[in-house]
């Protein structure tokens, strides 16, 4: 044994230890991401982006430490429960619910762009526009708190949104509250970004940082829409009692194929959802339209040459090209690839917003906010909507007896 070799190991071991410790710094805390698509669309300067971020920080706080202004109408205790990092080593920890259950799909910012999002079909919801699909209120209104709880408890069948029924009630409540918080924050962010366009020249491109402007004029209208949701709840008449089920189904079928409701245009004459296949929901449509604008803009500016232009025009042209390039990058890096929304296949018996007759009534009456499904309210009288509901519910079983309930893996039997 070589005595020297004992000693020689020390520097090697020390070096190795140093190398190991390099990676051991803590990652900075989670942070909200700015809505770059909107910021670029509104042509905000970096200073303006910074101002928006600062204002939002003051008004809403961070993912670890939310700020809850009373005007939002949100419950601070619930938000504390939902926010913050997950600490599984702490027994009985009192927060981190959103990060534990939701953030990897919906994103820490609630932008529907968590790490897993790009691989899901359909994409997870982006809360920031404040549009929600499956609720009991009229089309353009926000969901009620009970609607949010229902979605959390039941999940959304046929998508990656799971049921959280096995969480305790306080936890589900906290999560629903946090989603509203993220949505209010997102809509406020949009409103702030759009406000730059309205500024007059004296403001020099800076938003007034007064409570009056920020809270009363920007935040409160957003929060009010949430508070007024219960008033917009659809009043549902009773199902017509004087007609038997078979007759109701027959009437529903007529309406389904008729001109008033015109369901077959999208859901297809077979009810398999093959009527059309190239429409988008609002979130994807926004990206598609921006894509079109950017592409055509790039094509046009590509053709135009700056020779023969005045210095001012040439500078404007260059700015336009730069902006188009930036927008193109943002779309590639900060938005999910757009997907069409297929109309629902009504023969499988999977209903995303819930399978109660009541849920189907809501969908037909108010349509689906954010999706191409139109509202039948006004064109179809309420009892007729019930007939359509009964017809829809019979569709998975329409060929019972002919194809047989025992035939394996019939579409409906795939559940």
């Amino acid at each position: 044994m070589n005595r020297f070799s004992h000693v020689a190991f020390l520097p090697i071991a020390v070096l190795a230890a140093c190398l190991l410790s390099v990676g051991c710094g803590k990652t900075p805390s989670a942070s909200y991401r700015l809505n770059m698509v909107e910021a670029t669309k509104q042509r905000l300067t970096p200073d303006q982006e910074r101002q928006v971020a600062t204002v939002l920080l003051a008004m809403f706080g961070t993912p670890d430490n939310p700020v809850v202004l009373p005007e939002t109408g949100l419950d601070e205790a619930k938000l504390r429960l939902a926010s913050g990092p997950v600490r599984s080593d702490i027994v009985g920890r009192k927060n981190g619910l959103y990060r534990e259950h939701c953030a990897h799909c919906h994103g820490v910012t609630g932008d529907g762009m968590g790490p897993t999002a790009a691989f899901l079909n359909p994409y997870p919801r982006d809360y920031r526009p404040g549009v929600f699909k499956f609720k009991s209120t009229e089309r353009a209104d926000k969901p009620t708190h009970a609607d949010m709880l229902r979605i959390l408890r039941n999940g959304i069948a046929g998508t990656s949104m799971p049921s959280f029924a096995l969480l305790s009630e306080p936890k589900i409540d906290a999560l629903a509250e946090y989603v509203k918080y993220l949505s209010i924050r997102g809509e406020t962010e949009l409103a702030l970004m759009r406000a730059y366009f309205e500024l007059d020249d004296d403001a020099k491109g800076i938003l007034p940082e007064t409570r009056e402007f920020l809270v009363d004029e920007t935040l409160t209208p957003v929060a009010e829409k949430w508070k007024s949701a219960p008033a917009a709840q659809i009043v549902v008449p009773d199902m017509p009692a004087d007609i038997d089920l078979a007759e109701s189904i027959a009437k529903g079928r007529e309406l389904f194929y008729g001109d008033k409701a015109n369901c077959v245009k999208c859901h297809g004459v077979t009810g398999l959802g093959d009527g059309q296949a190239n429409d988008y929901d609002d979130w994807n449509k926004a990206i598609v339209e921006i894509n079109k604008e950017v592409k055509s803009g790039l094509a046009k500016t590509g053709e135009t040459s700056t020779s023969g232009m005045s210095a001012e025009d040439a500078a404007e042209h260059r700015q336009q090209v730069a902006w188009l390039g930036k927008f193109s990058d943002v779309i590639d890096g900060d938005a999910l690839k757009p997907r069409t929304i297929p109309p629902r296949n009504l023969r499988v018996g999977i209903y995303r917003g819930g399978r109660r007759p009541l849920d189907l009534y809501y969908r037909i009456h108010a349509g689906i906010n954010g999706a191409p499904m139109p509202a039948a309210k006004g064109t179809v009288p309420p009892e007729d909507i019930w007939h359509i509901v009964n017809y829809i519910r019979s569709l998975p079983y329409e060929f019972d007896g002919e194809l047989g309930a025992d035939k394996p893996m019939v579409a409906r039997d795939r559940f």
Partner: protein
Amino acid sequence: MGSRLGGIFWSLIFLAVPVLGVATFAVAPSYNIWLPKNVSEHGPSIDSLFMFILALTGVVFVVTEVLLFWFLWKYDAAKAKGPATYIHGSHTLEVVWTIIPAATLLFLAIYQMNTWADVKMRRPAMSPTVEVVARQFEWRLRYPGRDNMLGTRDDLFLTNDLHLPVDEDILIQLKSMDVLHSFFLPNFRIKQDAVPGMKIPVWFKATETGAFDIVCAELCGWGHYKMKGRVTIESRADFDRWLEETYARQEATQPASEDITASAAD
């Protein structure tokens, strides 16, 4: 060539293996790190098989490891005098330690066939109590409804919240909608992979009421860890009542009262 102290030290390290090994298994149950509570009828036979094999392998483990320690202690070159024993083997020993383990292992295999058949081969003649369809990442349940037939209009559809009656034979029809999953009920000693394209029967009888976990036990994608379900065992009366109530909620044509009062209080 090393000191006697070294030999003692290393022999004791190897002695630590059986000592700490047995200690771990002996101490674990007092920390509740042991077989979870069993509430199924066939569970005890599986648990007793586990314990039997544990005892058998435990004995072999202790004997072989202690022998290893003893040989290291005794035949340390720094301690034992003279040359090593020049021997190429013992025919007798080879026969003995081939026949005895072979017989034991064969016995073990045959001894367990009955329990296996009970759990996996002898399906009770009954129609399914519930159909469980595994899906990324939830358990979709379908009860046959009053007509006791799956696939008709009165089926009850649920997610993750399985209710079953106590003290009755239960037959589950297990399917998968997309990829492989596995229906694992730790407290019932039940596990069966859910294979898309196959309808696999799973049967057991619950002996106690309570709420227990349903765990997915076959990697099914990123959400494998959150495929948590709950099975609630209750009396037949409670079970029937729950079925009625849940079905009524499923067929609701008016919002539930809590859905209206909650929003008014908002």
